Structures are given as C-alpha cells and as structure tokens.
C-alpha cells in the first residue's frame, strides 16, 4: 500500500504526519511512502531528508491524493481534502467526529475509510498510538515554557549577592496528561507547584511528580475516572462552588496558572473567573490549554495573548504542539506508524482492516460507506482500578439483630454437639467397662484443654508450637519404659529401641524449639 502525507493546509499548522524515521519503519511493514513537496519543512524535515529515507516526493497535493491509498495527516481534512477521497482510500488523522459530523458524513458518502487518531480507545495496548496523549504531553511542557517566556521572574528561588529571589508559585488545574507534563516541567524548573483535579485518584500521581495536591474538603461521592475511561466527568454545582472558593483562596498567591481541565465532548468548564484574575498580582501569567473549547479562564481569548488591566497575561493559544513542530511531528508520526503496524499484522504491505479489533474498531469512524461512529464500548474496560465497594454500615438495630442471630446459631450448634456427644457417651458407657470409662473421662477433658489452649496462638509462633508439640509427643516413651521391664525378650528389644528413638526426639525437639524461639528474642 502507498501511504502519502500531504502538506497541512490549516493556517499556521507546522506539524507533519510522517518523518523520515517513521517512513523507514513504514517501509519495513511493506508499505511505500509518498510525501508532498515541502510538507515537512515547517517541522524541520527537508524534502532531501525524505528522499534519503526512500520516500517519493510528489509535487502537488492533488497528485498525492491520487497516488496514495492511505492518507496520513494531522489536522481534520478540509472540504477540498474530503472531496479528494475515494472508495479505496483510507484517511488517518485527527477528526473530532462529534464536532465535524457533516465532514464525517461526507467522507462516508465518498466511501473512504476514516481512522480518527483522537478516537483511539484509552486502553493500555493502544497507548503507543494515543496521539491525544502525546500531543497533550507536548502541550503541557510547552505551556510552562510559554508561561516562563511571559513571566518576568525566575521559577526557582535563589539567594544571590544581589538579593533574594522567591520561587514562583505555579498552580496547575487538571492533572491529565498535559497537566502532569506541566507539573513535571514546572517542578524541574524549580517552581513551587500546586495541582488540582476533580478525580481524587490522581492525587498520588500528582505527588509522585513532585507537586502538592490541592486538597478539597468536600463530602460527595466523587466520580472515579475509571467509570469514564480515565477522563473527568462533570461535577455537581455544589462541588464546583467549593472548588471555586478554594481557587479564590489561592489566587492572590499564585504567579502562574496553567489550566488544562477538559471534559470529553463538552465546553471547557470555567474554573478561573474574572474576579480571580483581578486578585492576581501584576505580572502573573495564565496559560489556558482549554482555549479551543472556550477556555477554563473567563477572560481567555482563543488563539491570542492578552494582558488584563491589572497586568495579568492570559495566553489562549491552541497550537502548542504546532509550536514545537519537530518534537510533535516525531511523536505523532510514531503514533501513526504504530497504527499502521496494527493495520498490517502480517507486515506484507497489505492492510487488514479488522473491525473486530477493539482499537481499530474504536478509531474507525467511517468504513465501507457507513458512519461507524460512535463505536460500541470497548471489551476491555477501565484504566484505573475501581474503588472497593464500601461495606454498608449497619445500623445498631441490625447489628444487634445479627448478633442475636449469631448467638442463637452458636447456642444451637453447641447444644446439638453436646447432646450428640452425651448420647454417644451413654451408649459407650453401656458397653464399656468402668476402668475404660475412667480413662476416657481423662481423655475427653484433655482434648478439650488442648483445643482451648491453642486457639489464640500468634501466627509467628506456629512453627515453634509445632516443634514443641513434636517434642511433647515423645511422651510415648512412657509406654516403652513401662514395657522394658518385661520378661519377654522381643518386648525388651522393641521397648529399648522405642526408648532410644523417643530420647532423640525429646532432646532434639526441645532444642529445636528453643533455637526457633531464640530468633524472636530482642537482642
């Protein structure tokens, strides 16, 4: 199959979906690679570099669309690009099918297969082709760099001959992939970093990245990310209020705010309101990574950098990955390459579009003239482990009832045992002679004592106890000792042997026990 990558037509887009490196890998799968002339230029890859990697450079986009079977690109296709697709073509790109429903229908009509990189299910097997994550990672990193660029001070605190510099305080809202990348970058630059997320289970991840989790005192069954495939779910108005109150409390102290809070298929929630911006110190910076969906900050202007009246810079760029085109192209091209690896399992250059495969099925939004979006839920669910079901607290009445029932059952079983035992005893007593019964009483009592004594033994003492019971079981020596005085020769020999063997066990057994116990002694 021929895989072609056109130049991105979207204004300002610098990324490219194929790099010379990824082309080499794709060729190993048996594919041929084509690229539109100048497609990689903005990302730092010249046509010559592609040619060297064995990629055929094609003059115009129209020719490329004609020649290639599979089109790999970054941004969702434009109307013209969709028109160029045909029945045998496959398009791999970001698509955002919810927002671009019309475009999707159009593509389906054309008979093209569209694989949306943003629809790759979030399961561990598909992480290598999760382009959203790799782009978010870059966005998170870039957000901190952008903030530093607009922030007039150091991130890290310093004590210099020229005076003391306090460290910058950074707040990161939303600890998804971008948020965590931002935390990592910010802490490694030396800023005091705080992070907040509505999903309580990410607190540990936040702390492991070196930031402080902003803890919210709120009594509610917070939805776990596991239920929504690892994404945050909308929170209740009460929760939102508590959250905003917390942010208001923090706002005057914070120098840099990076917001990354997005809820799938919804407008970004407003978390940093106008009054919070007004509370911030002049020179502070807000980077709004959610600007594309309206922004987490009330004052964000999409694709622009503004400075408020009180001197707070608000950056609403939506093209952070494009601003680091070389890095993001490399990662994105690798994501595409992994997708192609899954699509060509035999590595023979033949695409096997397996709609039974969870990952391929999930990402495919049009196939054979049908719109196949939304996909059925993946067979493998959940990223984070579900929290354990809480055991229901019993009311005092229920507890009392249960105790009473348990007590009754216990009494019942005990009484039954005693009655059965007593009857058996009586039956035995009818036949057995008195001398036997005398010994029998002793026997039964001893059994009881043995049971009672052992019940509460500590776990760690099981083996010493085993050793001591072994030593004590040498009591059989008494029998041998009583017989050794016999007049029959055989009896003497056997009894002597028994005494000898029991002797070994008595000394050995007790010594072993003592050595075992010595291990527990505090030295």
């Amino acid at each position, binding site marked *: 199959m021929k895989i072609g990558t056109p130049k991105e037509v979207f204004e300002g887009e610098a990324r490219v979906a194929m790099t010379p490196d990824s082309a080499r890998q794709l060729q190993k799968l048996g594919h041929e690679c084509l690229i539109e002339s100048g497609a990689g230029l903005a990302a730092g890859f010249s046509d010559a570099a592609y040619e060297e990697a064995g990629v055929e450079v094609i003059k115009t986009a129209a020719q490329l669309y004609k020649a290639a079977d599979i089109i790999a690109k970054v941004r969702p296709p434009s109307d013209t690009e969709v028109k160029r697709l045909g029945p045998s073509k496959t398009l791999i790109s970001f698509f955002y099918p919810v927002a671009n429903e019309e475009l999707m229908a159009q593509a389906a009509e054309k008979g093209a297969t569209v694989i949306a990189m943003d629809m790759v299910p979030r399961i561990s097997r598909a992480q290598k082709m999760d382009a959203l994550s790799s782009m978010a990672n870059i966005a998170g990193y870039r957000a901190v760099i952008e903030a530093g660029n607009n922030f007039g001070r150091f991130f890290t605190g310093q004590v210099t001959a020229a005076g003391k510099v306090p460290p910058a305080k950074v707040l990161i809202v939303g600890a998804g992939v971008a948020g965590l990348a931002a935390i990592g970058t910010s802490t490694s630059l030396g800023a005091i970093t705080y992070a907040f997320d509505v999903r309580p289970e990410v607190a540990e991840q936040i702390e492991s990245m070196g930031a402080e989790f902003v803890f919210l005192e709120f009594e509610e069954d917070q939805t776990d990310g596991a239920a929504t495939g690892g994404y945050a779910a909308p929170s209740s108005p009460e929760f939102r209020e508590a959250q905003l109150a917390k942010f208001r409390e923090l706002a005057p102290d914070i120098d840099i705010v990076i917001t990354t809070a997005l809820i799938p298929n919804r407008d970004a929630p407003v978390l940093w309101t106008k009054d919070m911006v007004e509370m911030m110190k002049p020179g502070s910076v807000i980077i709004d990574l959610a600007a594309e969906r309206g922004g987490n900050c009330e004052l964000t202007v999409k694709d622009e950098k503004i400075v408020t009246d009180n001197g707070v810079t608000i950056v609403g760029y939506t093209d952070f990955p494009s601003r680091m085109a070389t890095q993001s192209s490399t990662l994105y091209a690798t994501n595409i390459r992994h997708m192609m690896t899954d699509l060509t399992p035999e590595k023979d250059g033949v695409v096997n579009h397996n709609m039974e495969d969870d990952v391929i099925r999930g990402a495919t939004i049009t196939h054979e003239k049908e719109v196949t979006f939304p996909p059925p839920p993946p067979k493998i669910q959940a990223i984070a482990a579900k929290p354990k079901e809480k055991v229901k607290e019993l009311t005092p009445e229920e507890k009392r009832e249960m105790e009473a029932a348990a007590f009754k059952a216990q009494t019942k079983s005990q009484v039954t045992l005693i009655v059965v035992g007593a009857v058996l005893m009586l039956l035995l007593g009818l036949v057995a*002679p008195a001398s036997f019964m005398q010994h029998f009483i002793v026997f039964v009592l001893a059994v009881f004592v043995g049971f009672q004594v052992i019940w509460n033994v500590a776990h760690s003492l099981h083996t010493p106890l085993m050793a001591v019971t072994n030593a004590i079981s040498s009591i059989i020596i008494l029998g041998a000792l009583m017989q050794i005085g016999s007049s029959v020769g*055989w009896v003497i020999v056997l009894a002597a042997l028994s005494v000898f063997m029991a002797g070994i066990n008595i000394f050995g057994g007790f010594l072993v026990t003592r050595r075992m116990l010595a*291990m527990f002694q505090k030295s």
Partner: protein
Amino acid sequence: MEFGFTTAAYVVAAVLFILSLGGLSGQESAKRAVWYGIAGMALAIFATLIGPGSGLWWLSILLIAAGGVIGYIVAKRVQMTEMPQLVAAMHSLVGLAAVFVGYNAHIELANVMSMDQEAKYALDGFAALLAKKSGVEIGILRVELFLGVFIGAVTFTGSVIAFGKLAGKVTSAATKLPGGHMLNATAAGLSLILLFIYLGSGAMWALVLMTLLAFFIGYHLIMGIGGADMPVVVSMLNSYSGWAAAAIGFSLGNDLLIVVGALVGSSGAILSYIMCKAMNRSFVSVILGGFGETGGPQMEVEGEMIEIPVDGVASALNEADSVIIIPGYGMAVAQAQSAVSDLTKKLRAQGKEVRFQSTPWRAVCRGT
C-alpha cells in the same frame, strides 16, 4: 516406690505440659513455656522409671542419654532453614516408637494369655496389669493397641515423606499412584476388616498386615500433598502421633500418656486448622491429601519475578519515596533485624516513608 507418688508426679507433669502449650501462644511467655515442657518431660520420665511396672531402669537411662546426645547434636548442627524438615524427621521416630510399643503390648498380651492362673499371680508390672483384665477389657485393649499401631504407622511413613519433601529429596509436587484416593480408601477399609479379625482372634498376622497397609497409607497420603502444605502436614502428623500415644495410653492404662496424647492430638489438629486458615487453604483438602481439590493449581503467579543485584536495590531505595519491607523467614535466619532497623532509620532520616508488611502465609510456608 508408691503408686501414689507416680500419679501425683503425673498430675504435675500434665499441668506443666498444658502450661507449655498455652505459653507458646505469646512470644514472651514462649521462652518460659519451653522450660515447662522440658520439666514436665523430665518429671514424667522420672516418675515412670521409679514407678510400678518398669525395670531395667539403668538401661533406660543409658538409652535416653544416648538418644539425647544424638538428638542434641543433630538439633545443634542443623541450619535454621532446615528446622522444619528436622522436626518432620524426628517425628517419624515417634511414629515408629508408637508402632513398637503397640507390638509390645500385643506380644505381652499373647504371652500373658497363654499362662495359667498361678503364673499370672507371679507377674508384676505391665504384665500384671494385663493379667487382671476381663474379656471385654481385653477386647477394648485390642482395639486400642490396634488403633495405636495404625496411627503410629501412618505417622511414621507420613513423616518420612514430609521430611523428604521439605528437604527436597522427594518431589514436592502432589503425586498420586493410579487409583488416587481409592487406594487410600481401600487400604483403610481393609484395615478396618483386619481390626475385626484381630478383635476376634488376636492373630499376629492381622496386626502385621494392617501395619503394612498403614505404612502405605502414610506414604501415599502425604505424597499426594504439595510441598507448600508440608508445615500443615507436619503439624497434622504431630496430632496423629498424639492420638496414637493416647490410644496406647489406654491400652497401658497410663493416664499421663492419655492426657498428653490427647493434648498433643487436639492442639496439633487445631494448629493445622489455624495454619490452613492463615494460608487460605481448605483444611479438609489438605489433611486428606488434596481430597476434593477441584481448583487445580493453587494460584497462577502473574507477571515475572526479576532479581536485581544489591547495588540495584540500593539505588532503587535511594530514589524511592515510599518503601515497604516484607520481612520473611530469611531475614530472621540471617539475624538481619538490626541491619534492617538501621536501614529503616537511614531511609526515614532521608524523609522517606518506610512501612512493614507482615505476611502470615509466607511466614507459615517458610516455617517461621
């Protein structure tokens, strides 16, 4: 010496044994408890030696001393890690001793019964005791010694196999002969039939044949149990030998033997039960040699254990924020407690969180 003194000594010895077992339920009292056990044993032997029915006391003392020296040397020399199998090995001796004592009782009984009335009056000691027994009592006696020999024989071969499995000399996998549990059941059934034959005739061959069957049961039963369950098995065999001692105590009319046998028997059984609970294993399936085991392999081990060298551990510890230490039997054996505590202090000084996780199942498996 007076019979009363022996009985009195027996009472004291029995109390000491109970205290010994009870004391082992706590770590501090355990040290004392061993001495109670030793004192009880010494008292019991002393009282029996000077009590009625015994003779050749110098030979007995000599034999005990000789056995004691061997036992002492073996127990002193053995590696800490080999303790469980040593217990199993020594335990097989108790089983064999029980078989011998049972046989003695049989021989003596046959001997006494062949005597005439006058010769019987001339007897003393154990034989005299036998001579006084009535018909029914002799029947009961036979059942008791038959049981004693049976359990003793099972204990003997069972302990030998348990030793082999713990020492790695016998494959630790659960293996069964073709026929599996049916073989055990058949052998047990045959033994029961032999019991009735023996009860009726007092024939030596029935006793011998049953002993052989019991040897087989002991062997096959324990072969069918996996190596990881061996500590439970050893404890269970302890319990068996306790019951054997009690049964023989009945035939000899010795109350201390009955009391201590029952103590060991019941405490061993309960201990095995508790151990099974701690390891999350089914008690019945363990003691009956994997009987009714439907689960197949115990647990699939998921993932892979990767061993890392010491410097790898050191750098991992250096980088870690939170460390969990799971102390095992090996740590106790290596006397590494203080080293571990130093390590803990050092790590905590670096502001790392150090926690300990106790693992009862592992401790039991490894024999701590």
